[in-house]
């Protein structure tokens, strides 16, 4: 499924893998362009587009006026007219002015026109808390978009996936929201193949095989989940099946089902608020998949952010899920 046309590897951070994906696609297809605030000469406030302005010029790496609705609205116009815009929203917390454009147009032009007009567009944006950012910069509102019909939602958790998923997103014929967990932008370098390869949308990934408890998560929570799983295995011999969902819409139903059939016990971990979070969709998917539902040996547990606005940074560690909380829930479902 995962296709690599090149085998040479380089060591990249997650954000460098994103730059690399953009570079690969920009060089392959002239219709692709990158637009957003400070993406040009500045290379993006996180440096995700570093070097691209120098390489592809100001006609393809475009500093826009400071207007999210403008960025997304004009991207829609370009996309229906044959271009392939990759728009950057500087922080997920500033996507709201563009919500109208995404909700009423990007996500439904294909339906409205019975497929005549389409919006092959990617919206990239850094998201999540844990970097002591100023107010409003740390939101995790992915569920606003998984609830929205007509847009796919993708979240990488490591450099390899980031590059492969971004390339797949750019090649996708429909709008994709590509959420970049900023806490792990530079969490370490990993081997990333040179050149073009894709990681398919809609497919999760088993990061650690286990028989006892399924642990479903994504994005910046993945390293936390892995650590908790490793600790609890060492301390108590509980073996977790850790699954990085990678795409939040559409969910990888087969992978979730297989895991639940195997373990019968489930913990879902996300940083976003509890009520209305993607955990609800995973639970309903398990409920609706008879073989998974009937395998359950314990009620499903969640570890999430609270139903409060993501706080100012002096309180963000309290807001964010923690290893102990995850281990408690794993233990709880295991001993149920």
């Amino acid at each position, binding site marked *: 499924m995962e296709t690599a046309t090149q085998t040479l590897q380089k060591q990249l951070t997650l954000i460098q893998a994103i730059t690399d994906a953009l570079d690969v696609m920009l060089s392959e297809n002239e219709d692709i362009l990158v637009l957003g605030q400070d993406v040009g000469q500045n290379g993006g406030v996180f440096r995700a587009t570093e070097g691209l302005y120098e390489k592809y010029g100001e006609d393809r790496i475009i500093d826009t*006026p400071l*207007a999210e609705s403008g960025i997304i609205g004009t991207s829609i116009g370009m996309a229906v007219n044959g271009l392939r815009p990759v728009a950057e929203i500087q922080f997920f917390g500033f996507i709201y002015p563009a919500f109208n454009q995404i909700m009423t147009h990007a996500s439904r032009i294909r339906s409205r026109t019975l497929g005549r007009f389409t919006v092959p567009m990617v919206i990239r944006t850094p998201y999540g808390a844990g970097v*002591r950012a*100023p107010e409003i910069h740390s939101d995790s509102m992915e569920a606003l978009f998984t609830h929205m019909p007509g847009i796919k939602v993708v979240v990488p958790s490591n450099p390899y996936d980031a590059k492969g998923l971004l390339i797949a997103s750019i090649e996708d014929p429909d709008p994709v929201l590509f959420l970049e967990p900023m806490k792990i932008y530079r969490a370490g370098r990993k081997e990333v193949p040179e050149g073009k390869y894709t990681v398919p949308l809609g497919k999760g990934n088993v990061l650690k095989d286990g028989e006892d408890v399924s642990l479903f998560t994504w994005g910046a929570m993945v390293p936390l989940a892995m650590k908790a799983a490793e600790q609890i295995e060492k301390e108590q011999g509980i073996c977790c099946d850790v699954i990085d969902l990678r795409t939040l819409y559409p969910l990888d139903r087969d992978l979730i089902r297989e895991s639940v059939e195997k373990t019968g016990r489930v913990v879902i971990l996300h940083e976003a608020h509890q009520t209305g979070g993607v955990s609800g969709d995973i639970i309903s998917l398990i409920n609706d998949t008879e073989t998974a539902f009937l395998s359950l040996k314990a009620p499903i547990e969640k570890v999430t952010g609270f139903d409060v606005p993501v706080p*100012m940074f*002096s*309180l963000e560690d309290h807001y964010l899920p923690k290893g102990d909380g995850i281990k*408690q829930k794993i233990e709880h479902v295991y001993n149920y």
Partner: protein
Amino acid sequence: MDVTFPIKQIVNGDGDLVDASYKDKLTKDFVTKVYQKMLFARMFDRKCVNLQRQGRIGTYVPFEGQEAAQVGSAMALSDDDWMFPTYRDHGATLTFGHSMRNVLMYWNGRYEGVLPPKGKNIFPPAVPIASQLLHATGAAWAEKKKGTDRVAMAYFGDGATSEGDFHEGLNFASVFQAPVIFFNQNNGFAISVPTARQMHSKTIAQKALAYDMDGVRIDGNDFFAVYFTALDAVEKARNGDGPTLIEAVTWRYGAHTTSDDPSKYRDQTENDVRRETSDPVTRIERFMKASGMWDEALDELEKKASEEIEAAVGEMEKAAPAELNHLFDYVFETSPWPIREQKDHYLKSRGVNA
């Protein structure tokens, strides 16, 4: 209305009075007070940049270079008026009477940081760009409905003029003739994007024309141009004669925030030239010296300001850690069950009884 929008100036960068009609207004007492506030604003800002470097506060947004715009506009307000600042306008909020300790707390990631002294109408800094123009218009409109003569001042940058909220704010204010002053600081950049790439319009002031509103363009580094222009706009609004858009042309010397590297997108030697030719603080000092207002006692000001700032830093650093209640208890007046249960559960998991 003049459609070319020439830049209004009263005292130029060399400290020369270029508009003699203001001569009598620039008394020694007044100018001394102004100098004191300007110096204080600059020292506060520099202190914060240092605190950030030392890891004693989080990311900070500096305003050095914009002191005249911020202090001058804030001084034109009366105690009961409203202020709607951005994240860069602590020079304005402090001048208007914000708590120094709390402004520091804000940059230390604390909710207390947005709280001005009780009764002071300073809204929390707007982080989503341009959103505050509508709040200011609404607050001003409410004052008009209540029949008071209070006004609201909205602060925003050049980049903010690109957002839809900018246009909606001006239009509402114009339609309902709200007593609001739109105070723009055109500091040359929105992060890395220069004003000339933000807009094709030659000025920001000219955008007022579309709303049939007065638009004024001033030297934002000239305290006196800022202050007297803002005062006129405030008086006009108070008298029921509607909103004004002021474009204060200024320059930020520093980075966009302490996480930004301006050498990526501009020639930093420009700062040295501007410090010499158009600095807002130096020009007042030059003006005072040239007009015989300078007093040796002024050399003491720095020491006094520094003591006040250090005391506030001390208070910020002595503050007890952020309260968990701040996370849970202010989402609603009465917390509904999900928040109550999440809080109880969290406190229990930490061995605290709710």
